[in-house]
């Protein structure tokens, strides 16, 4: 379970103080598939970085299974990101000189998983995101944008995290692959009890999530929740 309490993040810009995240509070049960929609610059990515412990809030707190992130030292936060979080970044943020499979193996290497085991898991995940096996060993900079997106999703799943934070996960994918990724995320939340929070512009993707939030000028409001079946999400 993830609980967000009065989260505030401010930045100084000259004499002005900007509040991309302004007193945000919400709670997600484990296994929920949720989405946040909002205009560009509304603070979606900032909120994701606070939830993923990439950044520290100005005030407020994030509690993961009752544990406050605000009280954790850097080492523990690194461990939290490694063990409990999977990120899918808008610009993929893969390591360009490594192969697809090496990129997916990285988080497992940091988690201390043996090489043979992580290689097997990496190949399995790349198959799950439907990356052609011929391209598993190919360097990232020789893959298309859509293929890189799939590798990024596979990397986020590598350590079977409890929470996946995805920033426009279908943004660079064709309709068919996008549908497949939505299906994959949905099955992860349902079958593996993984909490997934997706930031998207894609209304159709947002409509397929359990809970839908809107972020506007730093403030979060929840739109009416729908059942997946009603939203037409894969069962």
């Amino acid at each position: 379970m993830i609980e967000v309490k009065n989260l505030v993040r401010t930045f100084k810009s000259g004499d002005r103080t900007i509040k991309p995240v302004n007193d945000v509070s919400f709670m997600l049960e484990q296994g929920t598939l949720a989405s946040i929609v909002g205009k560009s610059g509304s603070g979606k990515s900032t909120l994701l970085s606070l939830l993923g412990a990439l950044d520290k809030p100005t005030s407020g707190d994030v509690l993961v299974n009752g544990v406050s992130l605000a009280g954790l030292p850097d080492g523990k936060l690194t461990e939290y990101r490694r063990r409990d979080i999977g990120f899918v970044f808008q610009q993929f943020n893969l390591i360009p000189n490594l192969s697809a499979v090496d990129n997916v193996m990285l988080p497992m290497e940091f988690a201390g998983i043996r090489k043979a085991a992580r290689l097997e898991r990496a190949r399995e995940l790349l198959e799950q995101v439907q990356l052609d096996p011929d391209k598993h060993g190919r360097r990232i900079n020789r893959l298309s944008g859509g293929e890189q997106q799939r590798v990024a999703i596979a990397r986020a799943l590598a350590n079977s995290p409890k929470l996946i934070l995805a920033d426009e996960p279908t943004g660079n994918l064709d309709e068919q692959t996008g549908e497949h990724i939505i299906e994959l995320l949905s099955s992860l939340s349902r079958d593996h009890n993984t909490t997934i929070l997706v930031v998207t512009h894609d209304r159709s993707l947002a409509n397929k999530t359990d809970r839908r939030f809107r972020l506007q000028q730093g403030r979060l409001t929840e739109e009416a929740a729908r059942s997946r079946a009603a939203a037409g999400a894969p069962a």
Partner: protein
Amino acid sequence: MSVLARSIGNAFRNKVRTAAVVAVLAVAIGLALAMLVANQAVAGKVAELNASVGTVLTVNPAGGQGFEGGGEPLTAEQAATAAAVPDVSTVVGTKALRLRNAAAAAVDAGAGGPGGQGGQGSQSATTVTTSLTAAVDAGTLGTRNQAAEGTTGATGTATAAPAFSVPVTATGIGAEVDTTGKALELTQGTGLGDYTVVSTGALLGTTLAEKNDLTVGSTFTVKDQSFTVAGLFDAGTAFGNNALYLTLPTAQTLAELPGELSTMIVTVNSLENVDAAKTALQAALGTDAADVSQGERNLETAVSSLGSVKNISFIAFVAALATAGLIILLIMVMLVRERRREIGVLKAIGAPNRTIGLQFVLEALVLVALGSVVGAAVASFASGGIASALISSNTATATVTTMAGQRGGPGIPGGMPGANPLGGASQLLTSVTASASPGVIAAGITAVFGVAVIGALVPALLTARIRPIEVLRGE
């Protein structure tokens, strides 16, 4: 993929830049290694010089030297007095003999020539006959010298000089050293064992032995006594190799002058004490009885010059090493700045600071390893030239300084006006060979790696300060 594999991959990420970095590092590392090799070579030479002739004093009878001059001969008692002087470590007595070929001496005597017994006045007792033929032909100089001696011969009559044979110098020695105190370099056979007892063994110069068809175990005669060749030595000069060595008591017996010495070779315990020991020795023996000289006085200048080269090469080694470290530091700082976002990605997906730091240190070491390979090759070719250049520039400086300092002063003992004041020392200086031995190269590369680790640690620590939020830079 392990951290090491990732570091190697990163090192070759931009091949053009890697080649440029390796080239710059190779120059710095090559220079550092070349300086270290030069430093080691010079240090070895300094030690060799100090251990051989740098601390040797020569004592001659006052007013006499070799077969020239006059005065009273040195005695065993004076040798004991010299040995008791502070800082003197050893005293080796010598007794010089002139050996004349028996047949040539008979011809000279028949012709009324001057070279036979009595021809040298006071030195007659040290000129004896031998079956040996000199390895050096008389030539123009020998014949001229002989003619000059003929005018003052015992006969008192100037005569036309007959065909002349150069004498062979035999030296009785109290230890296995040559007349300058340097250890004899035996090329064949053994030494004479105990140099303080009469022996029938002899050590011959290589050309003298060759001229007389002698090898180790062959025999020859001196004053009708048979001697066996115990060993052959190479003095390095034609004059030096036309000589033989006997034990001191043997030479004294042949000269029929027991206890008499031609010279004493006094070794002082350290180069710093040579001047004080020389003064004390002169005082102990008396200026009217003995002349004390530092035959290789110019070696002090040579050693001093080599010491400068050693210091310069060490400073240059440290400077080149620091340069290599600085290059690594700057390159890695640049790479860390360039890869801030990538470091942010690694942190975002859970990489600990130590793993990221280690990755950058290993990447630096990969570059240093490549630079070291090329640098070692550079050093192996350049070290000799660099050492020579350093030595020649310092020798030239020392020469100019010494000559300027001596303007209007007394001449250099044994030297010629206007001659190189370093004399034979300059040959010793140029004889320094800087070869890149694996041990020295390994030591140098270890030092380079040590500096590289220090240079890479700073940027590696910088990575710890990069926050994972950097991953979102530009998003």
